[in-house]
């Protein structure tokens, strides 16, 4: 496929006057091979984006702890992006000039930002919601640990258990804070906000990373508690 594309491009370059770009020549000349190349690019780009959306859809299908609201938003966006991409490609295929085809094909990128926005949007939302679920499971178990610690006689074991418990609570709260709001924030980003949304995505990544780290420490604390209170 790449070889064919390269050959097509080479043929296109050979057909145009050396030193004059297509943009400079405007719509006055539009070789059929050039128009075909744009149309092929559009079809391929849309097909690849459909495949990516299918992967994203599969991912959230196996992540049971994504909140219903976020899941609905993502599923809706997958559908609307898919149909929107098909519509753009139909416009590209119907174009009769290179300029029109190129302008329409650009919408495949600018109207959807599948790779720059939808992919990280989906994964960050799933990561945050799943992490928040994990933190909530530990938060719900804290009273049991506290009650068990209270039954321990004073001594090294109780001191160690209390220290693990205190850190568990702190790490769970930190994780909940880090994961909280990430999904809502990233799902509010729109393709038109490019390139500004990249800063928001970077911030969301940092929050989720911190949340994962805190949740890991909380799990380690909880495992230590389980051993001490066995």
């Amino acid at each position: 496929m790449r070889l064919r594309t390269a050959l097509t491009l080479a043929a296109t370059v050979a057909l145009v006057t050396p030193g004059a770009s297509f943009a400079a020549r405007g719509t006055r000349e539009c070789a059929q091979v050039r128009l075909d190349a744009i149309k092929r690019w559009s079809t391929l780009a849309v097909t690849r984006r459909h495949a990516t959306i299918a992967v994203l859809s599969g991912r959230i299908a196996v992540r049971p702890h994504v909140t219903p609201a976020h899941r609905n938003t993502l599923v809706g966006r997958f559908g609307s992006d898919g149909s929107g991409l098909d519509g753009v490609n139909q416009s590209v295929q119907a174009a009769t000039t290179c300029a029109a085809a190129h302008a329409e094909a650009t919408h495949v990128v600018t109207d959807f930002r599948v790779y720059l926005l939808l992919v990280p949007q989906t994964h960050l939302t799933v990561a945050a919601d799943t992490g928040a679920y994990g933190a909530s499971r530990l938060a719900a178990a804290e009273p049991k640990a506290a009650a068990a610690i209270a039954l321990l006689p004073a001594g090294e074991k109780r001191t160690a258990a209390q220290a693990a418990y205190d850190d568990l609570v702190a790490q769970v709260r930190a994780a909940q804070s880090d994961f909280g709001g990430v999904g809502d924030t990233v799902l509010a980003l729109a393709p038109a906000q490019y390139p500004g949304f990249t800063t928001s995505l970077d911030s969301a990544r940092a929050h989720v990373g911190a949340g994962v780290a805190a949740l890991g420490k909380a799990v380690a604390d909880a495992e230590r508690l389980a051993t001490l209170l066995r």
Partner: protein
Amino acid sequence: MTRVVAAAALALALAACGHSGGSARPAPTTPATTAPATTPAPATSPASGAHVGADFTTAVNDASAARSQSSGDLGAATAAGEGTPPS
């Protein structure tokens, strides 16, 4: 193990009858697959007086699995180039 349990049960049955042997009463039958009765897990362990229970362990396992999935999803949250149509 089953033989030992059966033998012990037989001995107990014989002792209850005042016999050290013989076949005055049939030994209670014990299904081969039935494990000896166990006492329920205590709410508190004898050693420490404290026990968090299975629910706590389940919560920890759930949280650990969630952390692992979240970490994997974070790793997948990378942006890639969109490309541009040929011009």
